[in-house]
Structure formats: C-alpha cells, structure tokens
C-alpha cells in the first residue's frame, strides 16, 4: 500500500520509472511481504541446510561438513517408508477434503444470495476451538466404546467394536480432513465467487446444459482456487506430526514424527535437519508434479 502511495508522488523520477515499468511496480508491491520473508525464512532455511551437514559427537555437535546424515538415510528403509506413507496419507486427505469442500464452496458462491459472509464465518467458527480439544472430541466419536461404534453395534451393522477407527491411518485422514475443511473452502469459494456470471449465461444461451456449463466454464475458471486449496493443505500435511501422534497409533506415524523425535528425545539435530531438507525437497517435487498435472487438466 505504501507502494501505491509512492506511485502518486508527481514529477518524481521514481514515480515515472514506476509508471513505465510494471516490473518495478510489481516488485515494489511485493517488497513488504518479501522483506519479512527474507528476514524470517532465509536464516531458518540456511541454518537447516548447514546443520544437516554436521554430525553428532557425544552430547555436542561436530561442525565439520559431511554428507553422513544423508548417506545414512539411504541405507535405512525406514526413511523411505515413512516419507512414502506421509505422501500417501497427505494426498488422500487432501483429495478427499478438496473434493468434499468444492460443492460446499459452490453452494455458498452460487446458491447463497444473502448473508454470504455469514456462511463463511459459520464455516470457520468451529476452528476457533482448540485443535487439542477437537482431537479429544474425535476420540469420543471414534473410540473403542465411542459414539460411532456404539451406533454401528446398535444398528446391527457390526458385532464387535471396530478397533481400527481410532489410532490408525483412517483416524489420521479423517481428523486431517476435518481440521482443514474451512481452509480448503475459502480459496475455492474466492475463485468461484469471482467468475463472471455472463460467461455462464452466454453458455446457457448457446444451449449448454447445467452439467456441461459446469465442466466447460465454472470448473476450469475455478481451478486457481482448487490448486491453492490443494497446495495449502497438502504441503503442511505431509510434515504434520501432531495429528498422527494424537490419533495415529503405532502404525499411523508419519515422517514428521521422526523429525520431531530427532529434534526431541533423540537429540540429533543434524540428522533431523537432514531429514527436513529431504522432506522439503520431496514436497517441492510433489508440488511440481501436481502443478504439471494441474496444467494438463486445465487445458
């Protein structure tokens, strides 16, 4: 906004430069956010990279650079398995969440005519309760003698309580999907809301049916929002460790739990840093792959 203010100071060289070069204007608008990030991210990122080349010497750290942490990872199947599991769980949770949230966002964008803001707020309100308390609520629902099991037995659907509802990958996926629902709806809603209704009318005038209009116009135009929602949820979910730790049980653990253990009880920060770097690279690659797929679909 300061940038906007700057652009109007007449007769200044800077102003003329800005008017002429949209790149300069763009960078200026981007500058405040970028500055904050430069200060706040460069150091953590750099220190993670550097630390990942250190090694452990008793309780202290040996700072001679080595790639030992990385080569140690190659030798153990645990790392690959955990990263793979994290990617799978995050992908399933994200796809399910985005798919379930899209119709909801569509409903608010196109079928709610009054009180749209109210709807958005109502969809976000549940998340103003603490995550921890929500997890305990989920445990009541999914537990061995929980609400869902009691209901299923009462209805005669199962004979024995289902143990796999809680402390399993299913529970992790479910809780993740729930806690990210509002965050996935918002960007999709924002992009649907923007769509110029006249396009859709034009398509209708040309004889397109509801379904065809949706797939030919609405959906492609809302893709930026879907991509944003997907990214926003997928990326942090891969590295999440709190949800698996709370409801995952022994077999629901993800790579985040190992990183956490390395920075915590194992007290091996260098190895934790190396694993974080690998995880970030993996997420980056997964993100690129996803973008490529998204672009193909968008065509």
């Amino acid at each position, binding site marked *: *906004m300061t*940038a*906007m*203010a700057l652009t109007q100071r007449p007769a200044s060289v800077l102003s003329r430069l800005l008017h002429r070069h949209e*790149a*300069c*204007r*763009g960078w200026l608008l*981007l500058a*405040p*956010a970028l500055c*904050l*990030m430069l200060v*706040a991210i460069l*150091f*953590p990122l750099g*220190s993670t990279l550097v630390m990942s080349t250190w090694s452990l010497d008793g309780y202290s750290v040996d700072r001679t650079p080595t790639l030992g942490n990385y080569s140690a990872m190659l030798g153990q199947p645990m790392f690959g398995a955990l990263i793979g599991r994290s990617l799978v769980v995050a992908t399933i949770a994200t796809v399910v969440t985005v798919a379930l949230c899209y*119709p*909801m966002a569509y*409903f608010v*964008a*196109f*079928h709610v*005519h*009054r*009180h*749209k*803001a*109210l709807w958005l*707020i109502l969809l*976000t*309100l549940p998340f*103003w309760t603490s995550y921890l*308390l*929500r997890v*305990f609520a*989920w445990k009541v629902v999914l537990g061995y*003698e929980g*609400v869902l099991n009691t209901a299923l037995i009462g209805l005669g659907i199962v004979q024995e309580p289902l143990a796999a509802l809680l402390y399993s990958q299913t529970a992790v996926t479910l809780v993740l999907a*729930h806690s990210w629902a509002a*965050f996935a709806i*918002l960007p999709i809603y*924002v992009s649907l*809301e*923007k769509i*110029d*209704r006249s396009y*859709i*009318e034009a398509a209708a005038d040309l004889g397109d049916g*509801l379904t065809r209009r949706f797939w030919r116009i609405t959906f492609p135009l809302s893709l*930026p929002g879907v991509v*944003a929602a997907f*990214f926003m949820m997928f*990326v942090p979910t891969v*590295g999440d*460790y709190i949800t698996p730790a709370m409801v995952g049980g022994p077999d629901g653990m993800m790579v*985040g739990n190992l990183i956490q253990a390395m*920075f915590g009880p194992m007290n091996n920060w260098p190895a934790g840093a190396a694993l974080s770097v690998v*995880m970030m690279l993996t997420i*980056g690659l997964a993100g690129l792959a996803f973008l490529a797929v998204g672009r193909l679909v968008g065509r």
Partner: protein
Amino acid sequence: MARYIGFHRPNRPLALYAGAFAVFLYLPILFIPLFSFNAGVYVKFPLEGFTLAWYADLFQREPLQRAFWNSVQVAAVVSLSSTVLAVPAAMAIARYRMPGKRAAVSFIMLPLVLPGLILGVALLTVLNGLGVRLSLVTVALGHMVICLPYAISVLLPRFIGFSRSLEEASADLGESPWWTFLRVTLPCNMPGVLACLLMTFTISFDEFFMAFFLSGTEPTLPMYIWSQLRFPQDFPSLLALSTLILVASFAMVFASLKLGRVGLAPAGERR
C-alpha cells in the same frame, strides 16, 4: 443484477449436501460444550451428571483468562497485518509481469514446507542474536511469517483474472491510484479480503509452535492448553472456555447480522 440461469432456482441435492457437510463440521465440535457440563473429568461416555463447576473454575483461573485475551490480541493483529501485506503482494503476483516472479513466489510459500519446530527454533535463535526481548510482539511476528503464505494463497485466485476495467475507468475519471485502490480494488475484492482475514485469524488463534518458542512469560491460549496435558483434572475447564468462545463468537456474528453490518454485501450482485 443479472438473472443467473439455474442459480435463482434452489438446488435441492446441493442444499442437502451443504446440510450434511455442516453436520460433519459441527458434530465433533458439539461434544465440547456437552462435556463442559459433565461432572466427570474425562472426555468419555457415559456422562456423569450435570455441573457448572468447570465454568465457575474458569473464573478463578486468571492465567487461563489472560492466555485467552493474549491470543485474541495476537490473532487480531496478525490477521490485519498479514492481510495488509498480502493484498499488494497478491496483486503484484497476479498482474505484473516481472522477472524472477516465480522464484519470489515459491520463496514466500516456503513457511508452508518448513516444519514449525525448525522455524520456531531458528527464529528464536535470530531474535536472541538481535537481543530482542520475547513478548507477544515476537509471537505476532512469527505468526505473520506463517500466515502470509496462506493469506496470499487465498487472495491470489481472486486477483488472477480480475478485470481491471473498473480500475482503469476510475483512473480515467481522475481518481488517484490510492483512491482507486481504496474505492474500487479493495471493495471489489472484499470476499477475498474477508476470507483472508478469517483464515489468518483462525490460524494464529490456534497456532502452537511459534507461540511456544517466541513467547516470554505471557502464554497464548493454545500454548496454555497444550502445557496442561500433564494434569487431566484441569481439562474440563478448557472445554468450558472453548464453549464460551464458541457461544460468544456465535453471539457476535448474529448480533452484527441484526445490526446489519455483516453479510448484507451480496457479493454476487456486485458486478
């Protein structure tokens, strides 16, 4: 203003779906108020009788109340400031062709990938190096770092493809760029801005890692709640507090609705 083909008609299945979705969203949440009135300490069935003791307890727990107000303040400041930073950034990304943009964008999105723990430890080391005293300000700073990528992600889809004809018209009519922004750009993108405010507030209000590492002796609510895990006997009053938060926010939303402040901006009719 326009008549939308198909949209003026209610869509039954979709409305039903929306209802089911709301149930999924709210059902687990409703156990929080339920158990806040339960006489037993543990969150489990069967219920053990009705009590208001946890609410009474709440009023005696001054640290908990302080943690709550700390969190409200931090979240409010964070949502506003990160939105203020994110709007121009998203505009720049969406509209201007500039060299190195992609790199800059991926850089801004990095906090999404960095584990919260690493970010927290590293930021604390930086702040210590600079000799900054830890307080809620440092927590807010950390939250801004986390919220910014989300804020930009929410705003971007709005600005991508946003028709600039209105802004150009305004400029042609002699409005300064600043006023054009305030009176045309911002209002037209209000749904995005609102979504952004909501999202960043929600994230900051429930964030634990930055808060833990970057706070001094003033805790935020999530920190306080997580630190209580060793003592189950204090858990129900946390449920009571959460219930009050829910009730108060509902009351606020509906009150502002009655006062005609929120929601009377039928965004769809703005064009």
